[in-house]
Each structure stands twice: as structure tokens, then as C-alpha cells.
């Protein structure tokens, strides 16, 4: 049973929002006592997804939640945007595939950095990516 302990959201509208968002995530991670390696992994994952929002959808929102399941606590981040959406999610999850001339590692790389990864997208309506990183995961 997953319980949400705290909730915090921030909107992403411009490139200058990447750093504050990362700092916010890091703050929360430090607060629940996450180790430096997992902190860095989570912050990097957040950075990737925020950049995706800015690159493909122009603006969006990040929801930062502290969750717990039994004794384990962790952080769940939800990135939602109302951008163009992803036509073929399987393709987008492949290493090296990019429609935006980047390295094509953002989505698959993020999946490898976190414990749980979920992506939902409807073409023309937007994309929602949810990631979860356990404190000791």
C-alpha cells in the first residue's frame, strides 16, 4: 500500500526552471535521507524529463511527492505536459532514438536511473511520465 506523505508542485515554463526544479528534488531527497548516489540518479532523471517538457511541449508541471510503502520511503515525481504527445512509445523508449536531434537517451536512460517508470501519452493531448525512486533502491 503506497502512502503519500507530502506533496509539492512547480510549473515548468522556461529553461531557467531546470535548476530550481532540480534543487527542489534534491532538497526533498536530502530530507528523507537518500544517499548521494541515489540522489544524483533521481536529480539527473528529473533533469532529463524537465528538459523533455521544455523541448517538446514548451511548458508543463512537476509534482514532487514523498511516498512510503511499509518501511521503505521514496520520492515519486510526476511530469505532465500538454504537448504534442508521443506517437510510438516503444520507439521513444529505445536507446538512441530521438526526434529532437539529441542523444536519444533521455527516456530509456531515465528508466534505468529509477526504480519505477511509467509513461502515458496521447498524441495531440500530452504526456505524463511518473518515476519513483526508493531511498535505498
Amino acid at each position: 500500500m503506497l502512502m503519500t506523505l507530502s506533496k509539492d508542485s512547480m510549473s515548468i515554463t522556461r529553461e531557467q526552471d531546470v535548476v530550481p526544479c532540480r534543487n527542489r528534488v534534491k532538497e526533498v531527497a536530502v530530507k528523507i535521507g537518500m544517499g548521494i548516489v541515489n540522489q544524483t540518479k533521481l536529480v539527473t532523471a528529473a533533469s532529463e524529463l524537465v528538459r523533455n517538457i521544455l523541448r517538446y511541449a514548451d511548458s508543463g508541471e512537476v509534482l514532487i511527492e514523498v511516498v512510503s510503502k511499509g518501511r521503505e520511503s521514496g520520492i515519486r515525481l510526476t511530469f505532465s505536459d500538454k504537448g504534442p504527445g508521443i506517437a510510438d512509445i516503444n520507439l521513444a523508449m529505445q536507446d538512441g532514438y530521438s526526434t529532437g536531434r539529441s542523444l536519444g537517451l533521455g527516456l530509456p536512460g531515465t528508466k534505468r536511473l529509477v526504480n519505477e517508470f511509467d509513461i502515458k501519452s496521447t498524441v495531440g493531448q500530452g504526456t505524463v511520465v511518473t518515476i519513483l525512486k526508493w531511498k535505498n533502491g
Partner: protein
Amino acid sequence: MATSISQLLKNNKSTLLDGWIQKQLTNESLRDDLMTNDELRTQSEELVNALAKSLTDENITQVDSSDFDEVFEILSTISMSRARQGFSPRETGLYIFSLKEALIDLLQQKLSENPTELFELSQKLNRLLDNFGVLTFETFIKGREDVILRQTEEISDISTPVIQIWDGILALPIIGTLDSSRTQVVMENLLQKIVDTGSSIAILDISGVPAVDSLVAQHLIKTVSATRLMGADCIISGIRPEIAQTVVHLGIDLSNIITKATMASALKHAFSMHRLAVKRHETEKKGF
């Protein structure tokens, strides 16, 4: 017959100014360290003159009227310069609100036998001067934002130094986040310095980069490729353990770039590429 506010103002300009100055001088928020009393007086006089000139009995209720353009301009200049000089928003706000007090005091003196008129005029003046107050704040904040913007530019300028640490070896410590515009500056500085100094090795130190995501990595790879095109080798140093793990999980391939954990080992590597060796001097050994 209704009292003409503009006439009243024109006839009592000096009384108003004196009253206002008196209020400012007795106010505890007076910053005589930032501005002399003479300056304050000139500034205030300018504003009162402009107000007396532009205020008529018709436009007193039309706060957006273009008649007040001159007043707006003077107010903007004052609050903008105050923002730069380091006045607090409270001090700047009190400046304009004390003018309101002085004006109402003046009205009270002149219209003491006619309370209804006094009330009506005070209310109109209140509205007008509140609007001036809001404008003052807006420009004040804009002035502060200008300061921040300038500092941001300065930071990105000073935070990308290219240092020649040895004959033919350049070092470039990167502090903060590598975004597209920053990479552009870094790359330009580095490539120019390679030409200027004829260096063949460049060490990019990323100890000060908080997170390496795929975009930062892409920018790093681009910088390295550009350096190679110039015939120089590039070493990336300052890779912390947690960054190393993250980069591997992300799947970023940095294997064809020489990477080192510390600047010291990068420098050592650069020395060996140049066939240089650092030796302890013989004579110093005698001291043992």
C-alpha cells in the same frame, strides 16, 4: 462653487513642497547616507512641479490619462535610480505616500470649512496617488530585475575562464550548469585560446557541475569534438563517483574521451603526453 484643485495646487506649490520635505526629513526611513537633502529637494521639487502642471480638475479621476506622462516619467526615473542605489521598497514607497499625506494636509488647511468637498477631493487624490504608488513599485521592481539580469550576464561571463596551466596545456573549470548558451561561450573561449596559445591539450574540469544529464553530456561531447578538429586533445576531469554511476545508467558513451577523476591526474596524464616529468629536486633531499 467648487474649489479648483489645480488652481489650489499651483498657488500653494511651495507650501506643499515644504510640507512634503518636512515629512520626509522627519520620517525615520530617511536615507541621508544614500542621498543628500539637496538632492532630495531637487527631486521632490521636480515632481511637485510636474504634478501641478499636469493636474487639472478634469483628469484627476482619469488616472491613466496621458496628461500624467511627465509625472510618470519622473516617477519611473526616481524609483529606477532608487532601486539601483539600494533603497528598500518600503523607503521608495513611503516617498510617494508621504506626498499624498502632504497633499491631504494642504487640502485640510484650505478647505476646513467645507467637509464634503474636502472628503470628495481627498478621495480623488487618494486614488490618483495610489496609482502613482503602484507605478513606483512596478518600476522599482523592474529596476531590481535589471540589476539581476546584469549580474546573470556577468556571472556567465566570469565563470568560464580558460587558464593556461603549462606550456601547451589549458584548463577550463566549469562551474554550474552547462546549458546551450553556456556551452557556446565555453566552446568559443576554449577554441580561441587554443589558437592564441598554440596548446595541444585541454582539460575540462566538471567538478563544479552538479548533475550530468544527457544534454550536458551532449554538450561536452560536442566541445571535445570541436577541440579535436583544432588538433588538440581533450581530457575531462572531475568526474565524481555518483556522476560516473549516473552516466553509465543513462547509457552515455564517453569511452572515446579521456576522463580522469581529478584535475591532478588529468594534469599528470597531460604531462606524460608531452613527455614531461615532475621531479623532486636533488638538493632538497639532503634536508632529510
